[in-house]
């Protein structure tokens, strides 16, 4: 079981807390999924004034580990400031680092990401960087002090699943000992299972659960899929092949015609 900065959850679903119909439904989704970590985005305007207290209390009352994130930040400075505020509000040095480079795809600005990761790691943060499946960028993030990498499956909120399974597989092979989490783009439990079957250590998602017709049931479905995928990876799947390979020997069968 992979450890994320020393924390080894039984259930590696990282569940986002935005866009639910209500905080009560969010709490039910967390409970039914058994998620042990939730991510929370921090609006700087609320952090500065403390006006978001009521919602943050609800998050803390979920009784799970909180991974604050810098969602919506576009520059190194914004991301660093937001991370520092999040550390104060939630009393944790964990931070999901998101630096957006392009507004339509919400694609990470990997250059700014590496810089912000270095600043925050040097400042004692445990950084979970939202990145692409680029292994060179991944290496730079590790050099900057990250001990976890979180490549995207597809653009945030798109629900498209794994756009580049080849790239994700390469990343897994290239960083065999680094905890890897697919973050963003997951739409269906089968997408999450697929990532886990590739050997990923966790799944971070939000929209696919929050915007489902029944978020709590969908959260549970994801937890089951993640468990299935992880079990399948550990069980060493067979290789796909082009020709049929009968599971029962045909030699020696009686001819009936």
């Amino acid at each position: 079981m992979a450890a994320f900065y020393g924390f080894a959850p039984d259930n590696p679903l990282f569940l986002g807390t935005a866009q639910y119909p209500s905080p009560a439904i969010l709490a039910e989704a967390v409970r039914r999924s058994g998620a042990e970590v939730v991510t929370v985005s921090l609006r700087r305007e609320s952090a500065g004034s403390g006006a978001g207290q009521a919602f943050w209390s609800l998050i803390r009352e979920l009784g799970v580990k909180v991974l604050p994130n810098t969602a919506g930040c576009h520059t190194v400075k914004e991301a660093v400031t937001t991370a520092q505020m999040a550390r104060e509000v939630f009393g944790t040095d964990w931070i999901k680092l998101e630096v957006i480079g392009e507004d339509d795809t919400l694609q990470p600005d990997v250059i700014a990401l590496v810089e912000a990761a270095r600043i925050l790691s040097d400042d004692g943060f445990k950084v979970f960087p939202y990145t692409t499946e680029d292994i060179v960028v991944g290496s730079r993030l590790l050099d900057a002090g990250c001990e976890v990498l979180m490549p995207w499956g597809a653009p945030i909120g798109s629900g498209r699943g794994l756009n580049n399974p080849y790239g994700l597989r390469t990343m897994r092979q290239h960083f065999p000992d680094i905890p890897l989490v697919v973050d963003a783009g997951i739409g269906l439990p089968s997408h999450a299972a697929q990532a886990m079957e590739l050997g990923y250590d966790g799944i971070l998602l939000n929209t696919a659960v929050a915007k489902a017709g029944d978020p709590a049931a969908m959260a549970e479905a994801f937890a089951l899929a993640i468990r299935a995928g992880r079990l399948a990876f550990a069980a060493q799947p067979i290789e796909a092949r082009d020709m049929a390979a009968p599971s029962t020997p045909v030699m020696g069968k009686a001819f009936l015609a």
Partner: protein
Amino acid sequence: MTASRPSHELDVAVAGAGVVGLACAVALLARGARVTVHERGAHVGAEACSWYAGGMLAPWCEGESAEEPVVRLGQEAAAWWERHAGGVVRRGTLVVAPSRDRAELRRFGERTSHFEDVDGAAIAGLEPDLAGRFSRGLFFAEEAHLDPRRAIAALAERVLAQGGTIRFGSEVEPAALDAGVVLDCRGLAARDVLPELRGVKGEMLILKSDEIALSRPIRLLHPRIPLYIVPRAGGHFMVGATMIESGARRRISARSMLELLGAAYALHPAFAEAEIVEIGTDARPAFPDNLPRLTRRGRVIHVNGLYRHGFLLSPAMARMAADAVLDPHLRPEMLHDLAA
């Protein structure tokens, strides 16, 4: 007690002259109670988040994210408002999305009912100024809207006309009020006694334009920033509203302003030339399930948590509050009893 009033009349004090406080006052007066409303503000709407409401009576659209009671209870709103305040416009709601966000339209349709799919020609028929701008939409023909400021002013007049009293500039401690029953309708100000209550900040704009006319609320779907525009008299348009987990009641952020104006501009470029008449912000009171509650604690009943559904749910909540006040044996569905 005066000679003209029967001695069995119940004395009810209402704290808060926002939309639900006034609706409760009207409902109780109609059923024979004596009602005094205490409002901390200097006039109707001065301190009420309902002042910044959209005024959409759209139970089926709200079903996209709200739970079943909102859809069901909201269906009594349009007739109630027509009867008690007038000014209800029954022209439905039009939901549109840019072609690249067509998936949002499908999702909205899957979560809601009581609509028909409309194509570009039908959209142009409903809203001629939107001709050629959207090729797909959903039309909720049975929905309605009103001007919330006119509506609460009309309710306040009705309270007075029915013999009720409204005391402005009267900030009260509901439990200390001398009345047979106290309805605490103070919204977010009741957090001291309803610790589960939280604020969800909303920001809105009022624009003025003579270049565009709309007949009904338009909801513009977008995966990140769904917004709506409600036409009002005199070429005014209410553009709303953000939903931010924050109890802050004032100050709009530049980001929210961009989002609101961006939505208006995406709906129709003519809004780029519109005058910004007003910027409004306040926080909606909400419980963790985002559903309203009657919370009974001895002779005080807290009516709160109407969230973004003040005008949609006040009629039903006022009906239930009146039931709970006048017949202690009744158990309206949204009632929670607490030890006194």
